[in-house]
């Protein structure tokens, strides 16, 4: 197998707060291959955004990375150890160079008083040595590619003059104009209406093929995951609890949390089965359960063992990993 584009190893992230050191991410490892779409699923507080921001070193100052955490990025001619980048000049490569990011709320991501076009050319000028005229040309081409009508005229407009769907398209155009190898998409369709969401997902899938770039797609919506990604990672309270090919995980979920999520989801193909909520609330990160993080809400908890020992990863089929005591050797859950 060829080298992964980016390899995250034992990533742990803690935040230094007034209330002490809070664990946001605990020992998370995953790879993203070139040209692959990896889905990162989790509810609020699962650490999915913090994990993604770590790839671009965008977490705030009070964040402490684990001492043996590693993020390695393999570019054609170069291997970059993300945590060793100290100067902001060196960080350019992971901040808009080889990695770009788009966000949930595109209105908040564009500066309101600078035209969309100026923001697009600004980053092209930072990341390359092209002329302003050329940068403008490329920006307009990109706006056209993502399906914005009248791109030349739109180029001079401000974010408030765009509709929600158009803003998200412009955001994608901007993120892709530097030809990144990895696009981090943090809930890119959550704020959009379903019909617009379908358009944006189609656009992103086309662009992956065209630009041969990888996407880390963060969302809480399992339907979007099913229709978009190749492989997926499920996180709960900062812990990676399951990962595998999207078909394996969705058809044959191994972790009680993943199963619970699927059962809690209202499905159109089955209106008769009542919705089954996962009992209880997501614990506060200040009050992280010991042992398996899910034990406080787990319907099949073994009690003492789940409360005291962190489960190791068990393979369930090809590259499908599950962190659950019930899956460990010698036990058979039905």
């Amino acid at each position, binding site marked *: 197998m060829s080298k992964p584009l980016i390899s995250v190893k034992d990533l742990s992230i803690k935040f230094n707060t007034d209330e002490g050191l809070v664990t946001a991410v605990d020992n998370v490892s995953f790879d993203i291959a070139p040209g692959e779409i990896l889905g990162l699923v989790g*509810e*609020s507080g699962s650490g999915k955004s913090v994990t993604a921001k770590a790839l671009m070193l965008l977490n705030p100052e009070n964040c402490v990375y684990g001492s043996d955490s590693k993020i390695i990025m393999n570019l054609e001619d170069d291997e970059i150890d993300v945590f060793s980048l100290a100067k902001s000049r060196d960080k350019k490569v992971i901040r808009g160079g080889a990695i770009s990011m788009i966000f949930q709320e595109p209105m908040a991501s564009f500066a309101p008083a600078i035209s969309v076009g100026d923001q697009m050319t600004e980053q092209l000028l930072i990341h390359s040595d092209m002329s302003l005229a050329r940068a403008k040309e490329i920006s307009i081409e990109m706006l056209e590619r993502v399906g914005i009508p009248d791109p030349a005229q739109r180029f001079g407009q401000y974010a408030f003059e765009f*509709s*929600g*769907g*158009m803003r998200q398209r412009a955001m994608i155009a901007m993120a892709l104009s530097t030809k990144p190898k990895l696009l981090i998409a943090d809930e890119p369709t959550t704020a959009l*209406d*379903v*019909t*617009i*969401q*379908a*358009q944006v*997902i*189609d656009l992103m899938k086309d662009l992956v093929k065209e630009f041969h770039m990888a996407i880390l797609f963060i969302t*809480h*919506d*399992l*339907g*979007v995951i*099913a*229709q*978009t990604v190749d492989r997926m990672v499920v996180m709960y309270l900062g812990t990676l609890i399951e990962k595998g090919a*999207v*078909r394996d995980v*969705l058809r044959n979920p191994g972790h009680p949390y993943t199963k*619970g*999520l*699927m059962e*809690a*989801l*209202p*499905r*159109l*193909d089955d*209106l008769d089965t*009542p*919705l*089954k*909520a*996962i009992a209880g*609330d*997501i614990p*506060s990160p200040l009050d992280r359960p010991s042992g398996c993080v899910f034990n406080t809400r787990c319907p099949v908890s073994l009690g003492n063992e789940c409360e005291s020992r962190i489960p190791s990863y068990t393979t369930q089929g090809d590259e499908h990993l599950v962190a659950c005591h019930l899956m460990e050797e010698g036990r058979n859950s039905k």
Partner: protein
Amino acid sequence: MTKKALISSRDLSVHFPLPATRLFGPKPFVSAVEGISLDIQQGSFFGLVGESGSGKTTYGRALLRAVPIAQGKITYTDENVSYDLTSLSAEEMTDYRKRAQLIFQDPYAALSPRMTVRDIIAEPLEVMGLTKSREETDERVREIAAKCRINLEHLRRFPHAFSGGQRQRISIARALVSNPRFIVADESVAALDVSIQADVLNLLKSIQQDMGLTFLFISHDLSVIAHTCDHVAVMYLGRIVETAPTRELFAEPRHPYTKALLSAIPSLDPDYAGDVQKLEGEIPSPSNPPPGCKFHTRCPHVIDICRTEEPRLSKLGFEHDVACHRWEELVDPSE
């Protein structure tokens, strides 16, 4: 079975003024809701679905008399009273406020951070003067809190100590404490995580059945509507384009917009490649709506008449109405 409408609107329109462009002449306005006639039966869990800008929130607020009504009529009839909501006296309005309540979308914005949970839930009782003593208030608060599965120990705490799901249960308790008959739940689970959302939906359902309430459940999420509501109305640009009992709507959607909405919901099956009808373009601005059928700019089946003449809601079955010139031609013969 004969059911009675708890609340009905006839040709209801809500207009919001726009800044005047000329000193004289007609004042410009946005028509957020235009000519909606709808009956919500007593004890029904009525779903209202549509994209942003469809006017679903405005319609819900009009039924609560929280926005000025430009045209049309709303009547409210329960066991004890019958009101014409467009001409209420101040006294009747106060009484109607007890009977109709609202649950908001964002449980973080809806609760005052400076009030304890007990005070938040008790406030409607105090404002409306429904209880005579503090003891009575406390008792009523505890009763409703228990019903909404709020830990009674938590009544003395402040909202910041609670998660989204817990906060939403507090807003539900506040809405129910005055013992209303009619609840408008505006995107009440949209801000919640999936695992919590199912819990709140189940709670709303069981309370509705317990207390015999009537709900107008506003949501952009068709799968949530499908699982909770018995009736659905689909809105687009201030109009109702289709309304039917839930199962019928999902089994036999007739309006092209309803069909497109249904097929835009991403399936949980990665290999699903069914009959996907993708819509081009976006919902037009309500301040500049297209002539004719409001959906014609995005409709895959548009013909000339759609561009000029607005279709009326027509009955195609018992309780199933659709506003489309071509619905009959578009019925799939294989059904």
